[in-house]
């Protein structure tokens, strides 16, 4: 039982990071109907922002923990940097292509992704870097022998808080209403006076800053970062978004959690070697029975 509780907790803290990345995929898909493959690399840039901010705030990779306030400041700054990056990518690369076929944008997105990965290797160096210890990791809860330490708990809480915040923005604010309108029908929304460009930019900023936050949380949990670190989590988050129903925000959160838990359980109880094969096999099964994803709605193609 102890082992089971621990595994559930491990899975949730991994899943919450996937969920944060998946939100960006799903939001951008909801608005623009295309998969931003560079999203995983925005996540990587978020983690590296945290790394360099940690150095600027002058606590080295060895000992010496920042106060909660500094850790929070680094999280916010990394989110801003990632948001600016997402905004720039959209303005420079995707906007000129908005009228071109979807395939063109998709391939361009892969190009941006490779540019960030290998540009990152050039600028940051290809060697893994040790992420600074932003917070002291204390054992906080001891549930019948299952140790729950503070860092994964911080990850889980921060991720939950960001997801609730996003939900509030989308459901309660004016820009959120505009986002939903554009997602529902861009032409009609623009006829009603919604500034489509502003909505798209805003979506990229929010989605990318969430990926940036995921980068920091990832670094907190798994303190070794490198320029290619975004590939696999990016791919898994994309699958999480599809599993939850692409375009659906709560779906992405649920999808991320499911992938995190599946991975952990397969590794812990079946076989680490076949972790990805089994986890993804189960996903294929789910999608066979529910092709639109768990919370996805069927879209009727108008001919």
């Amino acid at each position: 039982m102890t082992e089971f509780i621990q595994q559930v907790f491990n899975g949730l803290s991994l899943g919450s990071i996937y969920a944060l990345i998946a939100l960006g995929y799903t939001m951008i898909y909801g608005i623009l109907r295309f998969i931003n493959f560079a999203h995983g690399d925005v996540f990587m840039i978020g983690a590296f922002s945290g790394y360099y901010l940690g150095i600027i705030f002058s606590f080295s990779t060895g000992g010496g923990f920042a106060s909660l306030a500094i850790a929070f400041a680094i999280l916010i700054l990394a989110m801003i940097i990632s948001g600016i990056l997402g905004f720039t990518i959209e303005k420079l690369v995707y906007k000129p292509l908005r009228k071109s076929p979807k395939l063109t944008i998709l391939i361009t997105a892969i190009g941006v992704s490779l540019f960030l990965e290998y540009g990152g290797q050039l600028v940051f160096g290809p060697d893994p870097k040790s992420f600074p210890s932003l917070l002291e990791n204390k054992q906080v809860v001891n549930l019948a022998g299952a140790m729950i330490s503070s860092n994964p708990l911080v990850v889980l809480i921060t991720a939950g808080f960001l997801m609730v915040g996003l939900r509030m923005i989308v459901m309660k604010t004016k820009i959120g209403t505009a986002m939903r309108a554009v997602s529902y029908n861009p032409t009609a929304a623009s006829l009603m006076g919604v500034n489509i460009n502003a909505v798209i930019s805003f979506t990229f900023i929010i989605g990318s800053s969430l990926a940036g936050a995921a980068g920091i949380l990832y670094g907190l949990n798994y303190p070794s970062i490198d320029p290619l670190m975004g590939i696999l989590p990016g791919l898994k988050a994309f699958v999480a978004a599809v599993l939850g129903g692409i375009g659906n925000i709560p779906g992405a959160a649920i999808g991320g959690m499911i992938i995190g838990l599946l991975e952990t359980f397969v590794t812990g109880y079946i076989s680490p070697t076949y972790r990805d094969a089994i986890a993804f096999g189960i996903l294929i099964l789910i999608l066979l029975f529910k092709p639109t994803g768990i919370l996805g709605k069927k879209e009727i193609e108008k001919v």
Partner: protein
Amino acid sequence: MKKLFFSLIALTAISLFSITGCNKNNGNEILIGEYSSLTGPNATFGISSNNGLKLAVEELNNSGGLLGKKVKLITYDDQGKPSEAQTVVQRLIKNDNVVAVIGEVASSNSKAGAPICQQNKIPMITPASTNPEVTAIGDYIFRVCFIDPFQATVVSKFILNTLKLKRVALLKDVKNAYSTGLADFFEKEFKDMGGEIVEVQSFSAGDKDFKAQLTSIKAQNPEAIFIPAYYTDVNLISIQAREIGLTCPLIGSDGWESEKLTEGKAKDALEGCYFSTHVSTENPDPKIQEFIAKYKAKYNSMPDAMSFLAYDAGLILFEAIRKAGTTNPEKVKDELAKIKDFAGVTGKITINAQRNAVKPAVILEIKDGKFKYKETIQP
């Protein structure tokens, strides 16, 4: 347009040929090739061994060179990837016409490069690959370090006799020939000596999340965990092990040897853990201390086991060429096989019938992020 395209391709092809074609031996130099992981997750292996080898070549050239010629070292980075290792070894042999190859540290990469050296009949010496299969590839492949069946015995003896622990869990990297090989030898040896393996878990190099495996290990309540893996992964494993409340000592092998092992939070996580390796920098042996002084003077950093071994790999290669009186690869190979009681910096080197060196191992303890000498175990 099509014509332009093809002429461009032709032009590129021609220019590529002329670039690679000009690196020919000009007759006054002996060319020696090296492939190592100068970048990537195992970068300190490559950098340390490259530094050690460069030191050996520099000293040789300052003292008059070899057979009246200077030795030139050509080093290529394989990024720690077996596929890249194959490409660069091919390039060393085919384009640069090197007379011998030195490399790699990681067994998986040595196993990728060695068949190419064997096919082309070019002697290869690996400084630090301990997997026994590396030198079994052929009679042109040599090493200057001990092999993993011995390392498994050393670690088993240390856990059972010195630490007096019996219940051990095993965590291995399934993507890595060194790790799976050493884990298998250890599992057998430790059981034969009367120990108990309570849990075997695995991961793939590059994984970042080990908590699921560590949680399963924790459920078996072991007294120690043996992790034959490379330092980048061990760094993360140790941090996560402490996070989920595993407090037992972690025991490692020579793949742990890197200053990056204890980087960040791992400094505390690995306090009081042990690993086996080739040489201790605390050894008062004047040869070792002299090497450390020379190395520090040149690179302004401490050498690790890989630097010592690469230096020795260079020395025995020079010795073999000197004795052969020629750079003919076949004669050099024959002389390498005859190396006996050669005074290297890591001790006396004797190449046995399997082309392996027979040497003692040392156990180091991690204290405050530094590696302290614990004991020596003889073969």
